[in-house]
Structure formats: structure tokens, C-alpha cells
């Protein structure tokens, strides 16, 4: 029962992080280039899994 419970909790956490945002794919310098073209700023989110 404990293993099943731990797995359920892990699934909930992972499932919740999997959805949602489209992050820029490439280097931060390329992101800056795109920001210049579009007249925007770059928001860098520093993320650490776990």
C-alpha cells in the first residue's frame, strides 16, 4: 500500500509539471535576438528539477 501511495504522489507531481508553457528552444543569445526582432524582453526562468 505504501509503494502504491508513494507512486500516486509522484505521478501527481510529475503530471502537474508536464503540462503548459512553450519555452524558447535554443541558446539565450538566440532568445535575445528574437526579443530584439519582436520588441520584447527575455524572461529567464532558472529552474532546478527535484
Amino acid at each position, binding site marked *: 500500500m505504501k509503494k502504491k*501511495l508513494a507512486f500516486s504522489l509522484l505521478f501527481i507531481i510529475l503530471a502537474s509539471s508536464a503540462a503548459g508553457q512553450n519555452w524558447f528552444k535554443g541558446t*539565450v543569445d538566440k532568445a535575445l535576438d528574437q526579443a530584439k526582432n519582436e520588441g520584447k524582453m*527575455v*524572461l529567464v526562468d*532558472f529552474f532546478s*528539477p527535484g
Partner: protein
Amino acid sequence: MLVQQFYNNPKFHDFLHSNFILYQATRGVDEGDKVYERFGIRATPTVLVLGSDGSEIDWHVGYGPPPEKFLERLEKTVKGIDTFKLLSEKYAQGPKNVEVIFKLAEKYDDRYDEEKATSLYNEVLALDPDGKKGTTDYRDKEVTYTEYAEFSLARLSLYSRKRDAEPFKAFIRKYPESQILEEAYMYLGSYYRYAGSKEEATQFFEEYTSKYPENPRALNYYVLRIIRDKDNLDRGIELAEKIKDIMRYNPSPSYMKNLAELYTLKEDTDKAKEAYGKDFMEGQVSSLGYDLRDYAEFWVKQKSNLESAEAMMELAVQLKPDSLYVIRSIADMYIQLEKPEKALKIFGPEYIKNQMDDSNTLYSYARFWADQEKNLNSALEAAKKSVELAPAPFKWDALSLVNLKLKRYDEALEAAKKAVETAGDQAARYEKRIKEIEEARAKDKKK
């Protein structure tokens, strides 16, 4: 949490996409680590906003719900309010502006740039030694820039390589009426629980706990020091028992663990088990089961956050499989979510076959499914058994209702009359069932 509550929330997507290119630097991934190093990031979550020329506009370190508060912080950045960039420009133009210097110090402090933060806080003290040039808000408390700069310098000193507690001691002596005095003691408490000589720590903790005798954290820091020193155990037990008493309605497992540790050091295993044994942990698990049920019920009623609500419903069922209250209420939530098959899975024939000697559970089951007009054959069997084991007017009434839903009008009437017969002065409550059955039968005959 920031990712789940903010970035992944469609509510904030328009704001994000219209103002930013979103870039995520992930620790442990090659490109991500390079970005961490390039910008000298020391903590997560950190959000850094860059101009398209690569200059640093602003940053925000840390996150706490609600996400709307985080949006407010980013909106200020977009509007250029108190950003790092603006403060730096103002500082260059007016290097004696205490408010600007203080806010710039805070910016560097947030980013763990101790050297720059220390230098700027010291400038605040030099320019405003008497604390007359303005105040800041610290957790809803108004504190002068000067006082808060001294507090921050003491904190930076405490967490520096030198681990120097003297500045905080000086702060406590200088500001005995400070609004943030308790916070200062708390920082010193976190220091002395593991550092300083035993005599110095004991002297500090006796002062701290006499000043804040009902603060569990203060008492617990002292307990941790006693456990570390393995000395003065009776005093430790006295403090730990006091924490237990203060938190009796919601005991913290970590505090109870400390109490058990003290009793173990005193070689009193029975007392250790009493504090932190099987009964304690089973109580924690049981409470969690009820909390999960309450959480799910709240969100199902709101018709929102349903994915999370369902996940917690599943966990609650796993934790409290023997609780009729939890199982029945979660079955009801599944009905509200239009998932009757899930309700049947946890509170259906498989469930009730293990409860056939419990009259009240059988009644509750029968009544639930009669109200849902589903699973009626199983409900009928349960209702009959319930009455057989321990007859009572409300159980006869449940049997009557199930029969009514099955259009077994003779049987329904018979049971309804038994309910009335056995109800004594409550008979009027059950009489309307008889009328209901007769009306239903008449209506059926007309068809």
C-alpha cells in the same frame, strides 16, 4: 510551484507572451548550467529579465502563492517600477539618496550578492545613522531603512564564512523595542542550535525562551541544541513536552521526533514510543486522509481544480479504506463529477460484500444508492440485511425507499408501515413515505 501555478496557468499566458520571450535554464542540463554560470545565479527559483541588448533589467528571487502576487511583481518590472536598472540609474545620478541605495541593496541581497549588498547597506548607515530618512515594510511591520540595514548586515554576517553572531547580538541590545526583534532572536536561535560554545548557547536560549515562552520554534531550537550536546536532558524534555502541549491539536512530527530522541537518550523507550510511535503516526495518516477528503469536497463544490481534487480523492480512499464517512462522501463526489462508475468502484458491491455484518454501513449504502437510483439490486440486499441485523424505523424507511425505486410497491408499503409502527412519537416523519408509494403506484397504473 512557480511553473505549475504561474507559467502553466493560461490566465497569465497573454501577459507573458506579449511582453517576453520565455527562456528556461534548467540546472543539470549543459546549456542550462552555462546560463546559470553566465549570470551568477545561486538560488532557485530566480527569474531574470533581460533587455534585448542583454542588459539586466530586473530580477525576482523566490516564489510564494498566490500567483497573482507574482504577476504584480512582473507587471512592475514591465512598467519600470523599482527595477534594478532604474535604481542603478538613480543611484548614478544621486548617490546620497537613502531610499534608492536601500532598495538597490535589497536587490543585490535577494540575489545573494553579499559583497555589493553589504557595501550598500553600510552606505545607508553612513548617510542616515539616526534612521530619519524613511521606512520600509518588513512582513507588514514598518521599520526604518537604518534599522533594517543593520538587521540585514547582521544576517549577512551570520551566514558569511566567518559565521559571526556578534552583529545580531548588537542589534538586539541596540533595538530592544524593535518590531523585528523576534526575527533577530530567531536568526540567533538558528545559529546557536548548532554553533557557539555550550555555555554561550545555553545563556542565549534561556534568554530567548524566557522572552518568547510560547513560541514553539524558540523552544525547539533549544531542544535541538540539547540533543546535540546530549546534556541537560531533563530541561530538554521539559521544553519538548511544552511544545507538545502548545501544539496539542496539531502536533508536528518533527517536534515529536525530538521529544522521542530525548527520551531515548534517557533510555526511556516506552516514553519515546508514546511520543512518536505507531499510534502517533497512524493518527497523522488518519488526519491526512480527512484533510484530503475536505480538500476534494471544497474543489468539487467550486467545480474548479478538479484534476487535483480527483487525485486527492484517490489518495484519501487509499489512506482511509475502512472509513465509511470518507468512502461514502468520495463516492458522492464522483457522482457530482458524473463519474458513477468510479463511485461504484469504491462504494459498490465489492465494497459492501465485506460489510455484511455491519447494520449501519449497510443502511448507509442502501440509502445512498436509493437516492442515486442506481445499483438498486445491491442496495436492496443491503437494506434487507440492515433491518435483519438491527431493525430501526430509519432502516425500514430505507428498505421502503429502495423497493419504491424498484417499483416493488407491495414490499415498499410493507416496509414503510413497519417504519411507522416502530417509530413511536416520530411516526409522522415516516408516514409521508406511504403516501409517496401510493401515488407512485397510482401513476404507474395509469400508464
